[in-house]
């Protein structure tokens, strides 16, 4: 299987892009914006202002390109590494940061944003997307669901059950696998003996598509097609986007223990932002000032998000039992009272 490619690594075109110039510029701006966030979050973690953080640098095209194919009311269920995609679908940077600061309120996007809080467990969440899409179909709505996951996640039993349910019940869901070559320290070649992840779709009677995940046009085109299929009632699609995480698994990880500098350097040559920039420049659609403007705007927006997130006071211990049920149960109320007594707050 050859991955679908529209933009060559040097920025020349292999095929007609799926979007016009303005939209291409918008995609570029979004990718740059996301990278600013990612670097800021990484820096904050080093300063001890975030708990662990899972950087996505290198995967911007896979996330932004795919999310750009969605309608604003489509459901999204993604992971700890998919902040860029979630933000594209309406999740706020400040809420993403809050989660990383270690505050449950980060799991609560603005009302109406159809994006679930990031999944920390690997695998289980794909089934949630199946249920969401299925529910819409049962109601006769044409909203679809998309779920993001990594190469490692394809080993979990829940991946299998999600793919199977989606295909058996013709659920409108797109499975977007970012094969970033590693699951923590494990290369994808030790995760599965199949040549590609895309080919796993056939086991479920579902189309599987392999795309160059650092080619934002290819990702967008493939996702748009899958979304259209789903919306038309033709069922699920598995997309494997080949990409690479430039940084560590999380800020607690040292990739030097398991991968070579050469490999990382080779992938850096395929950087998704550089690639689109080269294309835009060749088209006369890019100049340095414009990019600087995006960077400045992004920095300001993200600083503001950081400020809002960090300004939020820790909730009062009284609230500790409030999240579990619509109304705290009798045992929880007793436990809360005992806690407040112990804290001298009752």
């Amino acid at each position, binding site marked *: 299987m050859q991955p679908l490619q529209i933009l060559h690594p040097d920025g020349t075109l292999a095929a007609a892009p799926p979007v016009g110039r303005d939209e291409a510029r918008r995609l570029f701006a979004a990718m740059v914006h996301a990278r600013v966030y990612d670097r800021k979050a990484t820096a904050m973690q080093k300063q001890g202002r975030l708990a662990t953080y899972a950087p996505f640098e290198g995967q911007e095209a896979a996330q932004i390109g795919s999310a750009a194919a969605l309608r604003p009311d489509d459901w999204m269920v993604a992971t700890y590494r998919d902040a860029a995609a979630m933000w594209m679908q309406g999740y706020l940077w400040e809420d993403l940061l809050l989660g990383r600061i270690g505050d*449950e309120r980060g*799991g*609560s996007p603005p009302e109406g944003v159809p994006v679930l809080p990031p999944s920390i467990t690997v695998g289980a969440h794909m089934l949630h997307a199946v*249920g*969401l899409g299925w*529910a819409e179909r049962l109601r006769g709505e044409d909203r679809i669901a998309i779920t993001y996951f990594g190469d490692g996640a394809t080993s979990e039993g829940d991946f299998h*059950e999600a793919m*199977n*349910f989606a295909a058996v019940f013709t659920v409108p869901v797109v499975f977007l696998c970012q094969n970033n070559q590693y699951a923590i320290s494990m290369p994808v070649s030790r995760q599965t003996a199949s040549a590609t992840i895309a080919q796993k779709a056939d086991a479920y009677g579902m189309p599987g598509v392999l795309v160059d995940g650092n080619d934002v046009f290819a990702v967008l085109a493939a996702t748009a097609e899958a979304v259209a299929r789903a919306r038309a009632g033709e069922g699920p699609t598995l997309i494997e986007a080949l990409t690479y995480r430039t940084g560590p698994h999380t800020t607690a990880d040292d990739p030097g223990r398991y991968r070579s500098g050469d490999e990382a350097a080779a992938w850096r040559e395929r950087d998704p932002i550089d690639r689109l920039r080269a294309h835009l420049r060749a088209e006369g659609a890019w100049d340095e000032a414009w990019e600087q403007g995006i960077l400045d705007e992004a920095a300001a927006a993200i600083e503001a998000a950081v400020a809002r997130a960090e300004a939020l006071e820790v909730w009062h211990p009284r609230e500790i039992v409030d999240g*579990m049920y619509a109304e705290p149960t009798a045992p929880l109320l007793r436990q809360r009272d005992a806690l407040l007594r112990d804290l001298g707050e009752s």
Partner: protein
Amino acid sequence: MAQAINQALHQAMGADDRVVLLGEDVGRTGGVFRVTDGLQEAYGEARVVDTPVAESGIVGAAFGMAVAGLRPVVEIQFMGFTYPAYDQIVSHVGRIRNRSRHRFTAPMVIRFPYGGGIGAAEHHSESTEALYAHTPGVKVAVASGPRVAKGLLLAAIEDPDPVIVMEPIRLYRAIREEVPDGPTIVPLGVAEVVRPGSDVTVVAYGSMLRESLRAAEVLEGAGVSAEVIDLRTVSPLDADTVIASVERTGRAVVVAEGHRTAGMTAEIAALIGERALYSLLAPVERVSGLDTVVPLKRAEQYYVPDAARIAAAAARTMEA
């Protein structure tokens, strides 16, 4: 009891088209115990869904449906087959509300047969409700007969949070009881004093209620007045009703057919010790299953508590 549950499902599906059923063999055959009989005919294949054999898949997909605003009612064929779905339940079903601070919720029901008494194959006699009571964010109701089964299930379907509803296998066909025709609710988290008494409190639920009532009759013959409480939900547990009773009787027997260590009898006994210590005239007696696998048919009776063991335990509290 199977019929009462079937009636509850009919009423819920008729009243609210957000209610959908999912499970293995629930549609075409109406389930292994025929609990869902006739529902697919009545409400169609889209709302009564025969699923592939994949419990995590069933629960995980139903969870997504619930988040999207449906009211899925999942059947797992036997309690022993809920374990492949345990991760979905503990990590997601019970957590989405807290994880999103109420932005997303999962109002769904997971119901299944549980417990011994019919000499079933391995894995078909589990009674591990303690596991689910120990799982934050879900509620756990246990039916003790047709009326309670119907009322708990309807309450569970209406509840804004996920509820597990357990149905004693051996009662599906064994108990006949008047059940109100209309949609009746048995509130979650409220125990019922099923038989008042003054000498000893017997706390039970589910399959053990009937055994406890039988024990109470035996005890009455021996001049001991037993108060029998049906917990009805083990999470949240209505400790107030239990404590009030023990404060009056001064003696308690707690009964559950699940394993002993860290089981429900431990929790109830601990609560009594915590809140009614000074009323106790004798140690709380725990009558429970053993810390063994439930034996197969030929030796099952040694495992599952019965009226005789409950009565004997009560008698011991009287002697202390």
